[in-house]
């Protein structure tokens, strides 16, 4: 594949961009192409500023859908100018993909069953078996493999020849990204899209869903899951997007378990049978029990469940064989011998390594039959190639023809840049028919350009019969006799989703608390610096020490540190550190980071509006990282104000879009538990020590203000305000939304949404615990709690210690009883020849596997 050559890439200034675009795109222009004429007419009306605005809008939309995030900043960049594929080229691609699907399925059937191709030298068995993608321990005959959907990277040369550069036969990598591109480009370029008569893609995805349903006709209410590696996968966002679009549950391997030969989803209310798995995980990493290589992404026993016919895998196990070079290099020949046809989408020529003149390698690259990582460009690595050829067995090596790819113009940093591209096309194979998705993911090749990410374009295919557009609109999903929304009826949510929502709730509450605390700190600190004789210095110092000791911020330490206190704890620097310090668990930076990351983990549950707010939160988070040490208090206060507004909006938006069936109660539980921790820390720090009357009043004021309870306290107790009334309001007032008693009551109410708990004629352990929690709190007396002895409010401290213990016990119970996905399968040491062994080596193996993956 060609490397993008930044020096050679033509770039032009931004003046008259459309003239330059036409000039650069001359090779792609065709006479009598109505679609092109219409599009170009539309594009010609755009100014540079228009393009820039569209580009920014695309970045925003992609970010809001998670295709650009903190971890992969700038990973995908969708170009504001679509690529047009003329009807002639598209017809070739359409035919070529169908031809290829037919050929690939026939080859797969043969090598798995009859093996004629291996016996008559159609395919070299040794080259096939020595590739790591060939799983030698598996009996492929037991998995009736045929492609369900697949993708092909097609390169187009300047002469308009088509070459298949890479097949994606295990899962159609990029299909969700294409869908997302189309939705964004249709939004940003709605005028052009409407007038050009572009082929719709929605119908293809409907056919995918229909085909999936056909796989599960035996199960009337089949459960379909999309199996992902999780956020570490470069393509995770598209998996989230597809799960939402197709309406299937997105799961990681820890969400699934095999029991008694069937596959089950670990839902909050127990195991739910899974009927179909659409996997985004390679063949080699599917089953960490049966397969030789242990994979942290594997589901122990999955292959046994598939073999037993209890779950369908799409694409089935074994489809990865088709990507092995021993097969790929023979496709042209096999097409002619098996079907008597030349491939419409050609295969780059491959040559045995010992047949090539090593002095003429410019147009070739060296590859290996057994090492998929070996790819050396003959033009730039001639010396290395000679070295390898002299050291290695040349039987394992081959040279592949490089394809000089057509270049297309991209809008990059406000100018047009020519870049070589491939077109990733997608097809669905069902009931002997192949349906091609009428679009392609146009991707720049050669890896990321510095700072530019991978550039992609939406590819527009002209609608052959515009009348079909209206017909397709009418083609609604097939209605089957189902008994309703099964998720809603059963009330199941995956245990992992439940935990993520719980932690998201906790993170949001923590961020809000930190913001409020910092607000009070800056407000009082500013006052203190203005009026040196400020009388609340002692109370303010207690607040500062509470922050330094992390008793007022996460992790809400219960004990005072015995370290020597700072001479002057009060400083602007303390506020700055609490906002930006990455090493401080409870810093605003870390709490906000946690919100963003937890929200990304449940992205499939977020509404469009929630995602937009999340996008703004991520922007604020990035701003915190850049905040300078010399930032003024005013700047820091503004940042806190913006963040708290966004957090509140995000919280409201989530509450509006989540239902209890999708885990709203878990989200709320997270909030309540975190608020309790914060209240315990605040009570202990600000009221645990008996102070002088005046200092105590200021300390109470700081506590109430940070808990947004100052006004309520004033109104409720007017002339009788005291430590005792503060305690009554924040601990015992069960009807007051910010009191400890209220949080406990809420937890009891939310507990009712948890699935049935095992019990035998008596309360379940979690119910008993909550009852005790409530009693411990409600049976206290405000006056007793406010009383002090030897300068210490030991009754109050005893109560918070007891409640802390209850809360921890509650969290532990949630974790062990309901978050079942957290139980991860560990590889056990293998029985060896010697008499005994211990686990140390295995733990190290597991660790190595995790690191490797």
């Amino acid at each position: 594949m060609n490397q993008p050559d930044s020096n050679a890439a033509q770039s032009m200034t931004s003046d008259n961009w459309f003239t330059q675009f036409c000039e650069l795109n001359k090779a792609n222009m065709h006479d009598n192409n109505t679609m092109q004429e219409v599009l170009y007419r539309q594009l010609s009306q755009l100014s540079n500023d228009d393009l820039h605005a569209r580009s920014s809008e695309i970045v925003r939309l992609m970010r809001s859908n998670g295709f650009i995030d903190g971890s992969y900043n700038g990973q995908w960049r969708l170009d504001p100018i679509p690529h047009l594929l003329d009807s002639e080229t598209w017809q070739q691609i359409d035919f070529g993909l169908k031809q290829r699907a037919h050929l690939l399925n026939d080859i797969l059937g043969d090598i798995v069953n009859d093996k004629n191709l291996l016996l008559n030298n159609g395919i070299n068995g040794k080259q096939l078996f020595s590739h790591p993608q060939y799983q030698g321990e598996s009996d492929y005959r037991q998995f009736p493999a045929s492609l369900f959907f697949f993708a092909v990277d097609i390169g187009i040369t300047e002469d308009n020849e088509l070459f298949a550069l890479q097949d994606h036969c295990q899962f159609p990598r990029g299909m969700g990204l294409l869908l997302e591109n189309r939705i964004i480009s249709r939004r940003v370029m709605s005028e052009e899209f409407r007038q050009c008569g572009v082929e719709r893609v929605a119908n293809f995805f409907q056919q995918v869903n229909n085909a999936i349903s056909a796989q599960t006709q035996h199960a009337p209410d089949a459960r379909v899951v999309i199996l992902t590696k999780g956020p570490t996968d470069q393509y995770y966002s598209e998996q989230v997007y597809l799960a939402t679009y197709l309406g299937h549950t997105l799961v990681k391997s820890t969400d699934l378990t095999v029991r008694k030969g069937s596959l089950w989803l670990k839902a909050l209310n127990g195991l739910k049978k899974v009927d179909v798995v659409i996997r985004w995980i390679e063949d080699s990493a599917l089953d960490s029990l049966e397969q030789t290589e242990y994979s942290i992404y594997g589901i122990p026993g999955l292959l046994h469940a598939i073999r037993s016919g209890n779950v369908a895998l799409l694409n089935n196990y074994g489809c990865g064989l088709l990507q092995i070079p021993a097969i790929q290099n023979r496709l042209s020949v096999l097409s002619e011998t098996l079907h008597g046809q030349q491939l419409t989408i050609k295969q780059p020529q491959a040559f045995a390594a010992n047949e090539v003149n090593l002095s003429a390698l410019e147009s070739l690259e060296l590859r290996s039959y057994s090492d998929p990582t070996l790819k050396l460009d003959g033009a730039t690595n001639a010396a290395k190639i000679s070295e390898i050829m002299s050291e290695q067995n040349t039987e394992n090596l081959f040279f592949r023809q490089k394809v000089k790819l057509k270049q297309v113009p991209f809008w990059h940093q406000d100018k047009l840049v020519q870049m070589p591209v491939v077109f990733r096309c997608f097809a669905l194979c069902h009931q002997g028919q192949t349906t091609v998705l009428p679009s392609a993911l146009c991707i720049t090749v050669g890896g990321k350009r510095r700072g530019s990410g991978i550039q992609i374009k939406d590819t527009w295919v002209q609608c052959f019969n515009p009348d079909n557009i209206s017909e397709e609109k009418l083609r609604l999903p097939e209605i089957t006799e189902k008994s309703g929304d099964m998720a809603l009826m059963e009330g199941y949510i995956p245990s992992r989703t439940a935990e993520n929502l719980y932690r998201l709730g906790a993170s949001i509450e923590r961020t809000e608390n930190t913001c409020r605390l910092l607000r009070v700190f800056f407000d009082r600190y500013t006052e203190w610096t203005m009026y040196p004789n400020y009388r609340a210095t002692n109370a303010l110092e207690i607040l500062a020490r509470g922050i330094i000791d992390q008793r007022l911020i996460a992790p809400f330490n219960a004990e005072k540190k015995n370290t020597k206190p700072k001479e002057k704890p009060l400083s602007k620097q303390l506020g700055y550190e609490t906002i930006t310090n990455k090493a401080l668990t409870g810093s605003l930076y870390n709490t906000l980071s946690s919100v963003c990351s937890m929200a990304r983990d449940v992205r499939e549950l977020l509404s469009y509006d929630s995602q937009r707010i999340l996008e703004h939160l991520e922007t604020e988070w990035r701003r915190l990282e850049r905040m300078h040490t010399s930032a003024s208090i005013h700047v820091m206060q503004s940042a806190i104000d913006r963040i708290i507004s966004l957090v509140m909006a995000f919280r409201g938006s989530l509450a509006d879009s989540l239902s209890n069936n999708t885990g709203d109660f878990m989200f709320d539980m997270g909030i309540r538990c975190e608020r309790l921790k914060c209240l315990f820390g605040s009570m202990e720090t600000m009221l645990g020590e008996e102070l002088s009357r005046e200092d105590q009043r200021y300390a109470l004021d700081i506590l109430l203000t940070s808990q947004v309870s100052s006004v309520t306290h004033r109104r409720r107790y007017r002339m009788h305000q005291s430590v005792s009334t503060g305690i009554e309001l924040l601990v015992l007032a069960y009807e007051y939304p910010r009191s400890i008693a209220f949080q406990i009551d809420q937890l009891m109410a939310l507990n009712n949404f948890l699935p049935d708990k095992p019990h035998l004629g008596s309360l379940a352990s979690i119910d008993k615990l909550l009852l005790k929690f409530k009693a411990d709190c409600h049976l206290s007396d405000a006056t007793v709690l406010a009383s002090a002895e030897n300068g210490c409010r030991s009754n109050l401290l005893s109560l918070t210690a007891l409640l802390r213990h209850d809360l921890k016990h509650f969290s532990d119970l949630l974790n062990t009883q309901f978050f079942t996905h957290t139980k991860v399968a560990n590889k056990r040491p293998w029985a060896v020849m010697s008499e005994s062994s211990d686990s140390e080596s295995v733990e190290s193996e597991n660790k190595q596997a995790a690191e490797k993956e």
Partner: protein
Amino acid sequence: MKYRIEHKTTYKYSKDVSLTQNHARLTPLNLHNQTCLHTQLIVTPTPDYAVKVRDRFANIVTVFEVPTQHKVMEVTAISEVEVIAAQANDLFAKNISWESVREELANPFDNDYLDALPYVISTSLTTANQQMVDYALTSFTPNRPIIEACEELMGKIYQDFAFDSQFSTINTPLVDVFKHKKGVCQDFAHLAIACLRGLGLAARYVSGYIETLPPPGQEKLVGADASHAWVSLFVPTIGWLDFDPTNNIQPQEQHVVLAVGRDFSDVTPLKGVMFGGGSQRLSVAVDMTRI
């Protein structure tokens, strides 16, 4: 010869295990010279699911799950097996040169060769370096009959390598075994396979049991036997011919085959995953008695 074999594997964990999923290859195979008369797998705690399936290499795998919370799991396989001495080698096969076998494996023309082909490919446990290939070539001289050359290679391994149960673990690289010239039956089997595959021949790993006899005048100790490993070489017209480099013999009536594969990882007697468990300790006891 008939044997009763009891193979007990015990896992002890420091913390509770809530679920384990296992694959046991503890059922002796039925082969041309071996018949499994009776077999039984006893697991405690009792599994709630157990089925037998055949793996890619036609081994019998018992798939079972133990969902009961436990700290100790015992898996005991009890089998009765009859073994008869293998017939003398085919005279024709005795004269086949090793190079001709190599050539035919490179271009398989029938299913026998094709089925043997995966055993030509080296695995992570059986990768030969050039020194190992050179070591094998001293026996595999040009045009030498394949069986004769293999017998000599086994004899060399037997002579040159010391049995040392303290030296290696399953993770000891083969190059270390070759360098230090010591190991256990598993290492010698992997080494022999690496040498043979390094030459382009097909060799497979065999796991099973070997009857051991106590020193003269002493009684056999209970649990003193161990599972054993040897190799099998693909020889046209015969099929697979076993060699035991640890004892420098061709297995006859004293070897009982449990499973075959490309290397140890394909034939692990008991492998599994567990939920929980903490640190763990494994012990294995094997008794093989004539009946």
